[in-house]
């Protein structure tokens, strides 16, 4: 049943991310709900379940992106594993620490996606690169507590 709820939540979050209201976009950016779900799944579920959720979330995101490569699928599973390893080393009971982890992962994810885009020959002005890097990551961090609650409910 729990797995079904995880799957259902992923569908809902992907739908929400795809049809994120224009009025809730700050500086034309929106939060990465699937990334938050992927990372916070490690805090609340078994690693295998979290990893499966990460692969599915990545595949869902890549499906709706114009890029041909499944970069998010690979990245999401890497973040899932890295956070799992980190959680074994430090205490993650405090919500602020979880939030900090989400923020760091969001920044790293955006750096990799930005560099990948530049490496593909795309020209992105510095201002827009920084906007996507900083504001998008902060926004992702800001919505994280809501997804923590969702995951907590599913895991309960």
């Amino acid at each position, binding site marked *: 049943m729990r797995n079904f709820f995880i799957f259902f939540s992923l569908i809902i979050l992907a739908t929400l991310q795809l049809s994120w209201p224009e009025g809730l976009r700050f500086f034309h950016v929106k939060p990465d709900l699937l990334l938050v779900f992927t990372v916070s799944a490690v805090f609340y579920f078994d690693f295998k379940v979290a990893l499966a959720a990460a692969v599915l979330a990545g595949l869902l*995101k890549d499906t*709706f992106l114009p890029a041909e490569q499944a970069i998010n*699928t*690979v990245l999401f599973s890497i973040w899932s*594993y890295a956070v799992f390893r980190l959680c074994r*080393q430090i205490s993650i009971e405090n919500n602020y620490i979880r939030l900090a982890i989400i923020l760091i992962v969001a920044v790293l994810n955006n750096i990799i996606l930005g560099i990948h885009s530049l490496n593909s020959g795309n020209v*992105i002005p510095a201002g827009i690169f920084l906007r*996507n890097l900083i504001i998008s990551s902060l926004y992702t961090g800001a919505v994280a507590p809501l997804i923590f609650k969702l995951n907590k409910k599913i895991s309960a």
Partner: protein
Amino acid sequence: MFKLSRKTITSFILLACAAFLIYSLSPFFRNSAQKTFKPQLTLIDLLKREFGGIIFYHRNMIDSGRLKYEAQNLRRRLFDLREVEQENKRLKNLLSFKQKSPFRLVASRVIARSPDSWSSSVIIDKGRYNGIRRGMAVINAQGLIGRVIESAEGSSKVLLINDPSQGVSSIVQSSRQEGLVSGSLGSNLIMRYLPIDAQVSVGDIIITSELSRVYPKGLLVGKVISIGKEFSGLSRYAVIRPAANLSSIEEVLVIIP
């Protein structure tokens, strides 16, 4: 802290490869996923429109008044332009110009947008079933929007012109100077590779050129808002405001050649 065993690394590489293969080799997966998401995305789009109509009732009422006034003016102008069109047709016939076959347009609604900030694309609610294929140009009433990069049975993915991987061969309407218009993820576009002595000025209209294989010639791209010199000093660039408001597209027209 991150000491990895060979087994872990191998399982990770296998997992990543499997996911990559699922995605890359199976358009079936992508088509099914898009098909699964279409009903709820269409429903959310409908709800957003209805709620928007209720919430912004007063603004819509004022807009409606203004638009009625504009429509009256435009009707009058349209009447004048019909006369000009008739005259144009007559003159073209006189000059024995070859008439181009008119394009078939398929109207479609935007049901979703790119899930991240590093690309600019939309999903529309028409696909292969409606004759939409990869590579077709997409416009709206204001101007050029982008091109279809993937078409599933009942939906298609459109790459917008402000995506950095997009390049549109264009010309300055007044001087016929050619350049390449590309996106920058922002609200404006950049026209590159303009010679130092290019005849381009602020306010010039940019249209698609006949060199483009994807876009028909003469589609409105936008208007020049500023001009600058490239870092190398060898060429100039022009910043273009797109004719279509790319951040709030609702309906589009797909050109079927």
